């Protein structure tokens, strides 16, 4: 088998499971006895183990195997999840992450897991020390008596017995190292179906299909065949290690069912001894988390781009057909096209939506980071995440992680005070950081908010003056909000001591640059001793922007709306010159003028002195400029396309887009226009 072709899938799935592990272990920290969490952790670890063993990454398999041992003890309540164990689990997850990344980068460096393995074994051995007196013997090897049946199952069993068939409980063990467990289980089921009828299996069939079982499972079947026959048939299936066939005694009275949450059954028939069994059945009740899996397909982003292109082309061809229908007055055609129009519009919307990914993908890794960081800094922080289902374009998602890490680190390091300090201020000892995502029009807003000490504008001013970023007189003129925004300036840091967390003065500046390069904005609000709030505004997608289409002679250009302040109408004589640079005066501000026709060397640009001129006021940072155009066509959503390698690096042009009529229009690079 060529393993490489599964490599991508292995890496992606492993990373996903590691995320799940991280999340669940974190939750477990708050709720150590939650069996459901343990089950989920176990499942993820188990999947990683299976995958890595198949791929031949023995170290990963070995480590997860040992993890499973501990998890199993936890699950059976023989061990209690104390801090030591949780930390070891975290360490395991970290090491697994390293191992997986090592596989990804194809590096040969060895990661030593011996220490960790020893630690785990020690923990596992220490079970007797912490284990509660063995009062609950539920972990006993399987025996026929633990199977409970629902009413319908009992009915089927009875009916079968009346027909002279007998019920058997069959315990099937797969060979260790069996790779296709679900396939084997399926073959067992098939074989049994041929001989009789399968009443139920433990775990349930769906779980068997998902390989959510160890190496053995149990099946209850009714059949007319002899037990020996059953055993032989099943053993004939490859990779089956052991088959035990036990006669299954039919419960005389209807026992309490084990159907999860299926309301309360009539308690009248409840026998005293069965009451004892209740607690062993109960933990399986809520199944809320199950829904998360969903059905999905992994698709290469390039394929989606191609799809988007093709849909765009379809729209353009539709427009052409429309034209034909209109010019030749073909009513039938026009009607058909109208319907097609609706379909293509929907299609386009769907394709755009397919590219969207929930921000949860990025947010997922933060709880762990916040936990570790707050521990290192001896602070107590509670991270609250909201709106993780908010969707953003894939391209934005990939870029947004680092800036958010910066903001969160800052919030913990500079924002949240130490527990003593907080209590002295009359706050709760545990600080709170909120990470909130939500839609707002065509934007996504991400807020990082802490209830820490806030930012003192006076200190910021002082620091900025000290570092020579602003002058004393500038500082005096600034209001509080402006002063606080100084934190985004390059080379600024308030922290007196440089920690390895923050304080080097590159953080916020980098955040701002990154966000702006994504076409977004970042702002800050703060109140001393109440906290700070960083608000990031991002476009839904990088591939599609709002733009103003303008005309210069016969050529159409697009100006990104994000860099446009306003459009104004001026008279020719409003243009003044300062040292032969054309300028206009707008609300007391001198704004240099760019004549697009000159800048772009538009041929046949007639030098006719128009009376009324359209000026688009654009800005880049604090600079402003007015661009003179011939006509304003209107605002439109455009899909950004690259000009390709051959034409890369052309000044003034940022890219191209395709208009509704199939024509290509160029997108202006406002930044270079102003230089």
């Amino acid at each position, binding site marked *: 088998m060529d393993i490489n072709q599964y490599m991508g899938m292995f890496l992606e799935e492993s990373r996903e499971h590691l995320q799940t592990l991280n999340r669940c272990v974190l939750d477990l920290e708050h709720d150590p006895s939650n069996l459901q969490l343990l089950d989920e952790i176990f499942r993820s670890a188990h999947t990683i183990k299976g995958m890595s063993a198949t791929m031949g990454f023995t170290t990963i398999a070995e480590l997860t195997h040992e993890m499973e041992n501990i998890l199993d003890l936890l699950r059976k309540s023989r061990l209690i999840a104390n801090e030591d164990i949780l930390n070891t689990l975290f360490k395991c997850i970290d090491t697994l992450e390293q191992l997986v990344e090592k596989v990804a980068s194809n590096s040969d460096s060895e990661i030593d897991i011996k220490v960790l393995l020893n630690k785990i074994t020690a923990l596992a051995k220490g079970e007797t020390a912490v284990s509660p007196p063995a009062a609950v013997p539920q972990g006993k090897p399987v025996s026929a008596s633990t199977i409970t049946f629902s009413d319908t199952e009992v009915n089927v069993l009875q009916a079968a017995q009346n027909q002279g068939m007998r019920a058997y409980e069959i315990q099937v063990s797969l060979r260790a190292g069996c790779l296709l467990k679900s396939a084997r289980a399926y073959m067992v089921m098939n074989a049994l179906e041929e001989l009789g009828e399968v009443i139920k299996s433990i775990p349930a069939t769906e779980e068997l299909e998902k390989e959510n079982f160890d190496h053995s499972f149990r099946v209850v079947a009714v059949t007319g065949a002899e037990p020996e026959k059953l055993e032989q048939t099943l053993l004939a299936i490859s990779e089956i290690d052991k088959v035990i066939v036990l006669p299954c005694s039919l419960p005389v009275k209807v026992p309490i069912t084990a159907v999860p949450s299926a309301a309360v059954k009539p308690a009248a028939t409840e026998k005293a001894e069965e009451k004892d069994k209740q607690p062993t059945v109960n933990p399986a009740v809520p199944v809320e988390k199950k829904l998360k899996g969903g059905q999905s397909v992994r698709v290469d982003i390039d394929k989606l781009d191609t799809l*988007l*292109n*093709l849909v*765009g*082309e379809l729209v*353009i061809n539709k427009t052409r057909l429309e034209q034909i229908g209109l010019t030749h007055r073909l009513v039938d055609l026009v009607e058909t096209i109208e319907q097609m129009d609706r379909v293509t519009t929907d299609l386009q919307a769907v394709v755009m939506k397919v590219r969207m990914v929930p921000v949860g993908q990025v947010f997922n890794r933060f709880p762990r980071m916040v936990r570790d960081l707050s521990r290192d800094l001896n602070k107590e922080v509670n991270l609250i995440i909201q709106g993780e289902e908010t969707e953003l374009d894939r391209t934005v998602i990939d870029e947004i992680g680092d800036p958010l890490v910066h903001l969160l680190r800052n919030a913990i390091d500079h924002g949240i005070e130490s527990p003593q300090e907080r209590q002295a201020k009359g706050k709760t000892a545990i600080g709170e950081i909120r990470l909130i995502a939500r839609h707002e029009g065509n934007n996504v807003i991400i807020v990082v908010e802490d209830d820490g000490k806030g930012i003192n504008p006076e200190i910021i001013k002082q620091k900025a003056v000290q570092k020579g970023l602003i002058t004393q007189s500038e500082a005096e003129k600034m209001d509080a909000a402006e002063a606080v925004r100084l934190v985004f300036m390059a080379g600024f840091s308030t922290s007196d001591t440089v920690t390895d967390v923050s304080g080097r003065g590159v953080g916020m500046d980098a955040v701002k640059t990154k966000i702006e390069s994504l076409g977004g904005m970042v702002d800050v609000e703060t109140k001393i001793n109440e906290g700070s709030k960083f608000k990031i505004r991002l476009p839904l997608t990088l591939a599609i922007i709002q733009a103003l289409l303008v005309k210069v002679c016969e*050529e159409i250009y697009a100006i990104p709306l994000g860099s446009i302040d306003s459009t104004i109408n001026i008279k020719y004589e409003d243009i003044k010159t300062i040292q032969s640079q054309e300028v206009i005066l707008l609300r007391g501000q001198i704004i240099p003028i760019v004549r697009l026709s000159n*800048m*772009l*060397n*538009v*041929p046949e640009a007639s030098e006719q002195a128009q009376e009324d001129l359209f000026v688009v006021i654009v800005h880049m940072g604090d600079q402003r400029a007015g661009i003179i155009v011939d006509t304003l066509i209107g605002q439109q959503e455009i899909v950004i*396309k*690259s*000009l*390709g*390698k*051959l*034409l890369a690096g*052309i*000044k*003034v*042009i940022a890219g*191209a887009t*395709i208009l509704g009529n*199939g*024509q*290509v*229009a*160029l997108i202006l690079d406002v930044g270079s226009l102003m230089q």
Partner: protein
Amino acid sequence: MAEKTYSTNELQLVVFKLGKEEYGVSILQVQEIKRITDITRVPHTPDYIKGVMNLRGSVLPVIDLKKRLNLSALEYSDDTRIIIVKVNEITVGIIVDAVSEVLTINQESIEPPQTVAGGGITHYLSGVGKLDDRLLILLNLETIIGYSQETGK
């Protein structure tokens, strides 16, 4: 060039016209042939770059081959075509006066360019093919597109 390694020792060419002369490019480099469409001028580019066109949703540069080869320009007509070629992972369109046919030529009947053409444009040519009494000028698309991997421009 890659096509020379063919065991059959034969070369399939797309033959097109520029003015009265006949030119050929290897069919392996040709993706498709289109009628002339809307081409958007791109400022601050060499004059032989006619602009960019829309090919099923992708934006492609278009080269006016006659300008590139310093031939006298001719008005576009109904016969004018854009040949979409792909060289070194770059896809471009080249404008030609007319596309006439696809034909097969033997490697042996190709002369190196120095023997037939002097002057500045030899490096745009990869040879001249003789077929009966016709002469086919074979183009070196890499130099024509003017983008080589080494220089990056």
